[in-house]
């Protein structure tokens, strides 16, 4: 090379590079796109195995590949879909599920009771490590499928669980099976609407209870769509219509689930015309979204619930009047309007009012902005002069925590500071150690549309997410009675009574209910989203 002109070297190198960049790639456009098909933006799913799916992106894709036992109407009451009928005994303990005949998986296998039993047993079996396995915990025998690590994180291997199959699942005939619960639960039908309860075909298993390693790459379902090719990680998942599907037939003939890492990039593609539906418009783009999208920007309620918990172990917050005063000192509407630009709604109840039986304004006067009354109450109750609100800094909470602090300062003339901790678990570790963290930033999204999905985990004394330590035996027993009540209406009545107890005790301060803020292109119409943050794939249609 010495002696040659450097220009020549550079030119050759450039040519080589440009050739490499140009040649090694095809066109990025989906040349194989079907007519009448649409594209919907999602994030990379963690898994497409139904019992391992716990986030919205995977759940969206699965909703197109599988046909659930029940779906929910506008009032979030369940109705059978893949099931012909779902009946139960007087105690709500033994549930009989009769399947509609004639349904097949996309590989041609008929859907039979065994497909459900196989899938549920697989999902519930502890050593399979399925992330949605907790959905099966009400079924009789669930505990026997679990094995506890003997030395809690130590090197010793966990023992084999006692059983491999759920005792509570029994096949009656090819199209009928029964589910026996550990204790009666009136809302079990709603629980079965979740992804974890989808059936799996025989082809999914390579042995008894052993799932094919690659099943999640191209799941075979009983739904209106089937996989076209396999899951192209970080890129897209293409599904196409199943010919002569027996259930509700969607109006579009295919969906390309385009995978994005960043909501902003997704928004750019939506506005640029490369994407049909974005299910979550990022808050940075909300200001320009109404002019970019016009009437194609829409909002529907979602199930997410943001609140702050009061540390019940801290004497400063022992007096319910202090908690009520703080609740009245904040202006929820201002917060949702100014900080969230209307993408969330003020919360004035402890259970999302979208859930069947729940009331929109159960918190009443205590959740209304009333600074004068708040100040009186606070002074009379001799509330603390220094308020802290602890939050995790990785979730974009700083803006509203600061806003909330300013409102408290203005209304109560006390000092208020927001304390940021890196992660939620750092915060929860402090709460568990009963440290002085002040108010605790928390959030919740329901698992199934029942009041119990809020009341149970968040507020009962053994609730899985009751970090703040609220403990009221009256409340606990009302929730339990509600779950055991013979009819759903009676359950709802008891659960409402339980919520009234929460209003009296104010263990948490309800702040906001979430909304799906979504946008779509001119190509599609009839775009709706449900409480779970999923697009209704049966309703969406091509425009014009």
């Amino acid at each position, binding site marked *: 090379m*010495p002696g040659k*002109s*450097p*220009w020549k*070297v*550079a030119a050759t190198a*450039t040519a080589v*590079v*440009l050739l*490499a*960049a*140009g040649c*090694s*790639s*095809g066109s*990025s456009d989906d040349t194989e796109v079907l007519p009448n098909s649409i594209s919907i933006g999602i994030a*990379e799913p*963690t*898994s497409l195995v139904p019992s391992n799916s*716990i*986030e919205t992106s995977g759940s969206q894709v699965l909703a197109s590949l599988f046909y659930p036992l029940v779906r929910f109407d506008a009032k979030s009451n369940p109705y059978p879909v893949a099931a012909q009928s779902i009946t139960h005994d007087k105690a709500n303990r033994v549930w009989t599920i009769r399947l509609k005949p004639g349904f097949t998986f996309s590989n041609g296998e008929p859907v039979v009771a065994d497909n459900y039993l196989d899938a549920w047993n697989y999902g519930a079996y*502890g*050593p*399979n*490590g399925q992330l949605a*396995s*907790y959905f099966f915990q009400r079924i009789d025998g669930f505990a026997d*499928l*679990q*094995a*506890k*690590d003997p030395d809690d*994180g130590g*090197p010793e*291997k*966990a023992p084999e*669980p006692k059983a491999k199959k759920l005792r509570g699942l029994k096949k009656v005939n090819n199209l009928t099976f029964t589910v026996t619960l550990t204790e009666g639960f009136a809302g079990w039908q709603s629980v079965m609407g979740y992804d974890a309860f989808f059936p799996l075909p025989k082809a999914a298993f390579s042995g008894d209870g052993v799932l094919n390693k690659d099943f999640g790459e191209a799941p075979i379902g009983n739904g209106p769509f089937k996989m076209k090719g396999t899951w*192209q*990680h*970080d*890129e897209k998942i293409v599904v196409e219509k199943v010919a002569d599907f027996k259930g509700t037939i969607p109006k579009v003939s295919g969906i390309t689930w385009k*995978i*994005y*890492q*960043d909501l*902003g*990039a*997704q928004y*750019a*593609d939506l*506005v*640029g015309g*490369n994407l049909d539906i974005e299910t979550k418009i990022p808050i940075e783009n909300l200001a320009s979204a109404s002019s970019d999208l016009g009437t194609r920007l829409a909002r529907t309620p979602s199930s997410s619930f943001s609140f702050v918990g009061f540390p019940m172990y801290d004497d400063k917050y022992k007096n319910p009047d202090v908690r009520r005063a703080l609740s009245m000192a904040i202006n929820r509407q201002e917060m949702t309007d100014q900080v969230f630009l209307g993408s969330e709604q003020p919360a004035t109840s402890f259970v999302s009012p979208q859930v069947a039986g729940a009331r929109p304004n159960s918190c009443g006067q205590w959740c209304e902005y009333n600074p004068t009354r708040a100040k009186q109450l606070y002074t009379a109750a001799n509330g603390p002069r220094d308020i802290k609100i602890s939050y995790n800094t990785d979730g974009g909470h700083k803006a509203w925590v600061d806003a909330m602090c300013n409102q408290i300062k203005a209304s109560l003339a006390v000092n208020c500071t927001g304390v940021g901790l890196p*992660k*939620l*678990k750092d915060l929860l570790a402090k709460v568990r150690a009963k440290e002085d963290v002040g108010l605790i930033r*928390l959030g*919740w999204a329901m698992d199934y549309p029942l009041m119990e999905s809020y009341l149970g985990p968040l507020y009962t004394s053994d609730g*899985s*997410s009751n970090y703040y330590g609220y403990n009221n035996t009256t409340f606990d027993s009302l929730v339990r009675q509600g779950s055991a009540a013979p009819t759903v209406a009676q359950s709802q009545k008891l659960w409402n009574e339980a919520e009234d107890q929460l209003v009296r005790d104010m263990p948490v301060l309800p702040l906001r209910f979430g909304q799906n803020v979504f946008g779509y292109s001119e190509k599609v119409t009839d775009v709706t989203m449900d409480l779970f943050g999923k697009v209704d794939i049966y309703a969406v249609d091509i425009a014009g």
Partner: protein
Amino acid sequence: MFRFIVRRLLQMVLTFFGATFVVYALMFAYVDDPLQALVGDRPVTDSQRAALNARYHLDEGFFAQYWHYIKGLLTGDFGQSLTGRSIGDMLSQAWPVTIRLALLSIVIAAVVAIGAGVLSGIRRGGVFDTVTLVLTLIVLAMPIVVLAPLAQLVFGIQLGWFPPTAGRNAGLYELLLPALVLGSLVIATELRVTRTSVAENLRADYVRTAKAKGLAPRRVIGVHVLRNSLIPVITLIGVDIGVLMSGAIVTEGVFNIPGVGFNLFRGIRTEDGPLVVGFVSVLVIVFLVINLIVDLLYAALDPRIRYE
């Protein structure tokens, strides 16, 4: 020359293991509870924890985990990410697009920087020099987190000259905008270095000699000045490849390119130790190889340099 390369390759092996060890140790210290990160705010049940701990060796000590990792690595197995995907597959899917992007932006940056740098070096203080000075200052002052979305908004959406996002199989045209944005990270420094270097060499004795010999000005600059001025620029370009890989974390996110930068970011966010270490290990190799190539290029540019 041959002995030099062999020696460097042997050094690389040591550097590689040292670097992976350090990165592994850092990730081990950073990662606290990846299972919790996997499920979000939900509690993880005991039996899930037991099953997943066993699968990913999370309940073992640092050296045991590192041993498992190295053992896999030596047999060509990068292990599994926490979502169950093979990291080897992820690497082979992510690298091609990132390499294309980085090469394209290196070429764009180098062509523009050397061209403009030589021109402004020759006409120091002229209009062109002043204008490029101002422009480079603006580009230097713009962080990529601003530049990337701005370029996407203006050229991708409003003007519609380029597609707003690229994707894994992006062609030259789709990669052009992200490459321009990425290249702007390094273009300013490369330009300034070329300019200074050219201006300095123009005053050197050998240039005066060449001119006195009566050589055409074009040959004086094109061969004598440029060749000597390129040595620092080549070093800079070598280092810049590293800058481009890190800048790619933002650019790849904005333009939806599922490459190396994105996977690193995802690994860090989800506390996925094996994923981060896998990608960093390959990045280390890339750095080492590029540095070797840069060293070899010196010899091509400057006959006085000999490797023994």
